[in-house]
């Protein structure tokens, strides 16, 4: 009898503990430019709500389609993605919303913007000279593809007809340009700094130049069902996220060292801390207008979308701290 009572008490305690367990957020992350997001796992002391109001499990993905497929398969609740990838997903009917900014492609000496480089002593002096050549991007229908096509269109070239747009990994980009396999390549940090240090490459244009305005690069998205089911969890998560972003912007070098120490970054730490960084909004606020312009460009100039996407309906900043 005593044993049965003890077992029941233990069972009740266990289920009560489970009931109090904070909601788990299964978060699909990427491998570049998401520092403040990674810092939430590397420095949990900066996130007072973590462990109390939510638990965070970050899962690494190499590309956006896989991340969205995992979400559709019910394996993720949220994640990071370029704004244009979310526009694509929404166009296909994926129920997700962008809730916060991670970083932007912005003009200015303080910010890094994705750069397209050519051989320093090569014949390509302007984008027009890419006619008949090949331009390397990291994947089709990615942000790097969009900027490359925008740059070509600005120069009066027809992508795929006048200039081939070729998918190539970031690590192979530098040597491919130097050896003439491709005439121009896409460079982001930390590859940009490493290739500039090697020498022999010259800037042709930037993502910001190609599009012509500051715009969203990476954002945080959540599944609509999760947003509806756990609004307070999302608010608590974003409160921590904004706090971490502010810490990161105020203590960038230390934050980068912590990330390197935690294994989120494999670049040698001394190079990593010196790299220029993308612009990040301290409050996680989004530049919605830039997303609208990107969506219009994707539909009208690139024919990447069959019909217009309602950008206002895919963005919800109400969960961010006021």
């Amino acid at each position, binding site marked *: 009898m005593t044993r049965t009572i003890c077992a029941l008490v233990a069972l009740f305690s266990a289920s009560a503990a489970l009931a109090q367990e904070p909601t788990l957020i299964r978060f699909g992350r990427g491998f570049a430019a998401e520092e403040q997001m990674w810092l939430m796992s590397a420095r949990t002391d900066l996130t007072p709500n973590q462990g109390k109001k939510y638990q965070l499990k970050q899962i690494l993905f190499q590309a956006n*389609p896989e991340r969205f497929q995992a979400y559709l398969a019910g394996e993720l609740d949220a994640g990071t993605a370029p704004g244009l990838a979310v526009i694509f997903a929404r166009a*296909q009917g994926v129920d997700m919303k962008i809730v916060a900014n991670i970083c932007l492609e912005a003009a200015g000496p303080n910010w890094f913007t994705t750069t397209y480089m050519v051989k320093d002593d090569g014949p390509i002096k302007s984008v027009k000279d890419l006619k008949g050549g090949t331009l390397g991007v990291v994947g089709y229908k990615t942000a790097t593809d969009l900027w490359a096509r925008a740059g070509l269109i600005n120069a009066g070239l027809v992508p795929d007809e006048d200039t081939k747009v070729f998918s190539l990994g970031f690590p192979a980009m530098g040597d491919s340009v130097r050896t003439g*396999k491709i005439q121009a390549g896409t460079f982001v940090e930390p590859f940009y700094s490493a290739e500039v240090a090697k020498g022999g490459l010259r800037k042709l244009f930037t993502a910001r130049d190609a599009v012509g305005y500051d715009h969203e690069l990476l954002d945080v998205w959540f599944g609509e069902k999760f947003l509806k089911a756990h609004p307070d969890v999302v608010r608590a998560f974003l409160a921590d996220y904004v706090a971490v972003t502010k810490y990161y912007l105020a203590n960038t070098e230390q934050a980068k060292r912590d990330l390197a120490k935690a294994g989120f970054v494999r670049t040698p730490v001394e190079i990593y801390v010196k790299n220029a960084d993308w612009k990040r909004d301290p409050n996680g606020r989004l530049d919605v207008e830039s997303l609208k312009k990107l969506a219009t460009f994707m539909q009208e100039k690139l024919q990447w979308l069959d019909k217009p996407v309602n950008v206002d309906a895919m963005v919800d900043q109400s969960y961010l701290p006021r």
Partner: protein
Amino acid sequence: MSWQIFRTKYEIILRPLVVIIIALAAWELAARSGLWSPILFPPLAKIGSALWAFVSRPEGFTQSWTTLYRAFGGFAAAAAVGVLLGMLMGRSAFVAGLLDPVFSGTYAVPKLALFPIFIFVFGLSSLSKIAPIFLQCLYPMTIITYHSARSVDRVLLWSAQNMGASRWRALLCVVLPATLPYIFAALRVALPVALIVAIITEMISSVDGLGYLVTYSLSSLRTDRMLALVVVISLLGLALDRALVALRNRLVYWEKLDTYYV
């Protein structure tokens, strides 16, 4: 009796269709169950519509030809070199001693791992895709030919020698016909490998071909288009295999393949 033959013949054709119909029905049920997103599990009608859109445009044929041209390029080169090497290894202990350890030792290496090197050497052209196809197909071609050439009935060879056939003539008139069924078996192993490697290399790095279209469809979250391409690739693989079996039955007329699954 004739009814029996008629029944058996149609049973042979219809039996595999039963499995296909069950698989399609299971897919449609999964798609309509609502358990999974229709973006991941599009209904058959949507896949069919994407398939029609692909085959009804000239671009569909151009892209298919691009992939086939690469696959055939690597496959044909591997067949020629593989048969030659296999024959030499099978009939010469010296050549076998020289090459067998190389082939045995590197058989398990996925040749696609060398793709970045091929890009570096051959650039972004079709040649960088044909090279890994060649290498991947070379192994089954060489090894199967080698073992079949080695196991040719000695009595046949002795008979040819007794009748005054030279070494070269014995190779051409005895060893080659004896190994031909195995060479075709090797070709049937290598042909789908060629198609697979062509598509994978196009998925990794290409601006054309079926593999490129698969990646492009996935990047656009168009699973219906991607699955339509999977159907096209399957049908191409089947058609190529049937063509190869037909050619084999014509050339190796003394040993026809008559089981239903070939």
